[in-house]
């Protein structure tokens, strides 16, 4: 009996102390981690997508709710006027989800550009979707473009050898365009 109590006490104490240490460390680093994610993951891409923005895009971010889901919205301004918005969406690629940041010029409903935020495609083959040569082909397209690869009956040039990856990007953009009218409406209502 004494042995069991000893085991319970020791293991509980160790777990308790560890949990305490971790929550303390978490509290100390949480803010920095959030900041790092924004600066390193989304920040550089958002700046490329909203290249003509004159404001501090990362500081001016806001969260809105579309169909019950939170969307982190980046707003690009020219002077004081909102010029473009950008948010992230995802599609299924060859090796996993492809996350894409899509920017929209809200004046004429065209894409200001896209950037691949993260993907798990084959290096050297599917990874071409993240290269400029592919992503810049989306710049200036209207939101009514059929975002499918040409073999699928759409308007987008696929990459030879990376069909699934290119389709994944198109799927991500379709998902993004789908909620664009609602995002824009909420944006203008504010």
């Amino acid at each position: 009996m004494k042995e069991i109590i000893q085991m319970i006490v020791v293991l509980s104490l160790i777990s308790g102390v560890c949990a305490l240490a971790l929550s303390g460390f978490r509290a100390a680093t949480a803010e920095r981690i959030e900041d790092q994610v924004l600066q390193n993951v989304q920040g550089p891409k958002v700046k490329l997508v909203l290249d003509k923005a004159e404001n501090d895009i990362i500081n001016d971010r806001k969260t809105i709710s579309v169909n019950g889901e939170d969307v982190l919205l980046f707003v690009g301004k020219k002077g004081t006027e909102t010029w473009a918005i950008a948010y992230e969406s995802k599609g299924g690629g060859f090796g996993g989800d492809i996350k894409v940041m899509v920017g929209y010029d809200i004046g004429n409903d065209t894409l200001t550009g896209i950037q691949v935020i993260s993907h798990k495609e084959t290096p050297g083959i599917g990874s071409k979707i993240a290269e400029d040569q592919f992503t810049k082909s989306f710049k200036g397209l209207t939101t009514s473009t059929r975002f499918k690869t040409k073999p699928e009956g759409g308007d987008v040039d696929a990459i030879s050898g990376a069909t699934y990856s290119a389709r994944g990007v198109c799927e991500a953009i379709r998902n993004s365009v789908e909620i664009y009218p609602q995002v824009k409406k909420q944006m203008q209502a504010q």
Partner: protein
Amino acid sequence: MSVFKEFTKGLWQELPPFRLVLGLCPVLAVTKSATNGLGMGLAVIFVLTWSNILVSALRKVIPRKVRIASYIVIIATFVVIVEMATQAFFYPVYEALGIFIPLIVVNCVILGRAEAFASKNGVIASALDGLGIGAGFTMSLVVLGGLRELIGAGTLFDVEIMSAAYRSHSFSFMLEAPGAFICLGVLLAIMNAVSAPSSS
């Protein structure tokens, strides 16, 4: 036996990935570049040294029947600390290592040292043991990562070593899983040729 020996044995005699062939999962997975290998190695040194110190300090308090559970709790704590610290201060490293930082918890080198060494030896010896084994592990990862990066991408620690012509047509398969196995196999063969296979 001098305590210094506890440190140096990890550098050759008991070099984890090559002599003991332990903890191979991260060894194969993260060594796409020398930088990744170094980052992973440093994370392992931290976890290994501190878990060894704590396990050793608590070795008389922890009842035998719950010792493995206790070790896992201690190791997991340090792993999560490393994960949060890399995320907060070395974000690019965190991104490159991804899931393999949390997976340090199940790296058998660490639990192995806790069970085989730290639970039977003093705090200072255990700390040196952790540092030594960790340093050996880091060394192996850097060598393997450096080799794969050099052949596969033509760079070393992101510095361009090979000519531009080589880099544009490099053996990028060395950066994939088969390249890791081939590199590890070749290095193992070299190590075994240099000295007789480890008896431990």
